[in-house]
């Protein structure tokens, strides 16, 4: 594994899942649910990839396979009232936040029944009613918007938290510092989650970043920052819980950097020229799902039979979503100019 980042993780690697889950107050049922969600994300993405190959998905998409622990560990912490601002590689986070897979699949296929009536596609899936303010096609887009969401929460006096998730690439946008600075001076209830998957498209983060880990940049703004193993789902849960509790108790913004890795290319045009097969294989040895699964088996939380059943159930769910999307109508071309203005 390439070691871009010499800093030691703030978390201790999860080895004894029973002791750890007891500490975190997670029931066995929750652990199984988390595992199940990770499987559903992986299967969803593999299906999306197949649909693309079949020519059913128009345009491009950004797959997050390999990063499921960040999505699921985070999703398990957030409350339904919290706001989510996501990045372009956002399928996992949406599924982990409880989004309807049928509507997601329909949006992929550009159908009227999709979350955005087929106007947004994979890169713009949103569910504003459910406080999901969308994936974003602009690197750092959510980092801009989240300041206002934090301000609004403060003005309205609610207990909500605004979670913005972005990649390592976005940490090099100018808005990153503008946003952290404002969040810090106004004590905004924002959780910044940097999902560091090592590459901004093809750019190796160590090559394009003056200072890693990025949590040090948060510390420079006086914002507490944690640097964690993003492939350890319980570590993600643990530190996201600390972060969300911090923001919810009105102690100001907080920053978590989760180190992880994507297996697929940046987008569909990526031929992986900037990294080696060996590197990808090394990361696959630390696969977040495999790691969690073996810990669950070791602790006898689940059996091989359970795993098989979960795979079958989730596969059926994904197949049903594809069927729903396939059978959904296309948007009507006569409505192409609808929804520009309210």
């Amino acid at each position, binding site marked *: 594994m390439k070691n871009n980042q010499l800093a030691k993780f703030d978390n201790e690697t999860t080895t004894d899942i029973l002791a750890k889950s007891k500490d975190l107050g997670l029931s066995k049922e929750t652990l199984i649910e988390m595992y199940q969600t990770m499987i559903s994300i992986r299967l969803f993405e593999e299906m999306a990839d197949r649909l693309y190959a079949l020519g059913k998905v128009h345009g491009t998409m950004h797959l997050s396979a390999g990063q499921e622990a960040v999505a699921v560990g985070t999703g398990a912490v957030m409350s339904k009232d919290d706001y989510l601002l996501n990045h372009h590689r956002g399928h996992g986070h949406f599924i982990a936040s409880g989004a309807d897979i049928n509507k997601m699949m329909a949006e992929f296929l550009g159908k009227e029944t999709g979350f*955005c009536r087929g106007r947004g596609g994979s890169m713009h899936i949103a569910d504003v009613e459910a406080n999901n303010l969308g994936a974003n096609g602009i690197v750092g887009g959510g980092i801009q918007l989240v300041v206002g969401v934090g301000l609004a929460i403060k*003005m*309205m006096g609610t207990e909500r938290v605004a979670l913005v998730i972005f990649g390592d690439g976005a940490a090099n946008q100018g808005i990153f510092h*503008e946003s952290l600075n404002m969040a810090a001076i106004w004590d905004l209830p924002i959780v910044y989650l940097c999902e560091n998957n090592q590459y901004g498209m093809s750019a190796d983060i160590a090559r394009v970043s003056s200072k890693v880990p990025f949590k040090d940049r948060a510390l420079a703004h006086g914002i507490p920052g944690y640097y964690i193993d993003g492939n350890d789902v319980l570590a993600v849960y643990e530190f996201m819980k600390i972060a969300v509790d911090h923001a919810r108790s009105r102690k100001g913004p907080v920053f978590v950097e989760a180190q992880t890795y994507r297996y697929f290319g940046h987008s569909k045009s990526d031929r992986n020229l900037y990294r080696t097969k060996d590197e990808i294989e090394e990361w696959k040895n630390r696969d977040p799902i495999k790691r969690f699964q073996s810990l669950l088996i070791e602790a006898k939380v689940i059996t091989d039979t359970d795993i098989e059943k979960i795979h079958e159930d989730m596969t059926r769910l994904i197949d049903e979503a594809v069927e729903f999307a396939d059978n959904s109508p296309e948007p009507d071309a006569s409505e192409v100019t609808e929804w520009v203005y309210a």
Partner: protein
Amino acid sequence: MPEITYRQAIHDAMVEEMRRDKRVFIMGEDIGTYGGAFGVSAGMLEEFGPERVVETPISEEAIVGAAAGAAMVGMRPIAEMMFMDFIFLALDPLVNQAAKARYMFGGKATVPMVVRMPSGSGSGAAAQHSQSLETILMHIPGIKVVAPSTPYDAKGLLISSMRDLNPVCFVEHKLLYKIKGEVPEEEYAIPLGLADIKREGRDITIVASGIMVHKSLDAAEILNEDGISVEVVDPRTLRPLDVDTIAKSVKKTGRLLVVHEAVKTAGWAGEVMASVSETSSWDYLDTPMRRLTGKDVPIPYNRHLETAAVPQVDDIVREVRAMVNNQY
């Protein structure tokens, strides 16, 4: 009716709406104790406190981005750009987020926000503080662009802009802040998208906005002495543009001159002329449509050069005479 300044009209619109609607707040640079670079928000911090008069660091991208984010979750932010020129630093959140969220999300989001911005030359501030960039904003579907020329219009249009469910760019020509005009004391609003005929006439239609309305009215006064009757139409809202009112006026006068301070190339005069040419008013034209605009230069510092860079009353008078005398 009491006479107040354009600055006061904008100030009053914000203050009154903030009293009526708790969701409205303002954010921007130096808008608190300083009262804003042009004094528009003077006294607002004292009345509403730092929670609703949010003084920001110099971070335009984050200001407009934050406004968009707050708008998406139910607030009604007003973001102030100290100068319109600085909107370039904030075009990404304005154009790629605020303008598109509703469409991208299939009509399931609203972004009710106003970005106020002082535009224009005449203050000796040179190239980076004097631009008229409304055309660039007009080009973006999802954004509305408002440019009032009088205190009455400024207040009524700002009230409507704050109540609109879309991102509205509110363009305030900085030389207008001091002008006075009648403004009713009672609450009123002017709908967006409606042009106003500032002077009725028979021989030629001048379409002008912002400070150019006043220059056109001055020119009309001079031309009247020559027996040339000028109609001055102020679109007030540049997007959506009230093509009907303009086309109707052209049908009546048979001549169209568009006057704006923004530079000529790809300026909105072209949009007005193209829109008119698509209507039956085309058949009523007695002479080619013309435009009188800012020259294609950055605004210069030197007073004489600065004056020469944008249309003045004399230029308008000369152009109208040429058109009426069929010199084109």
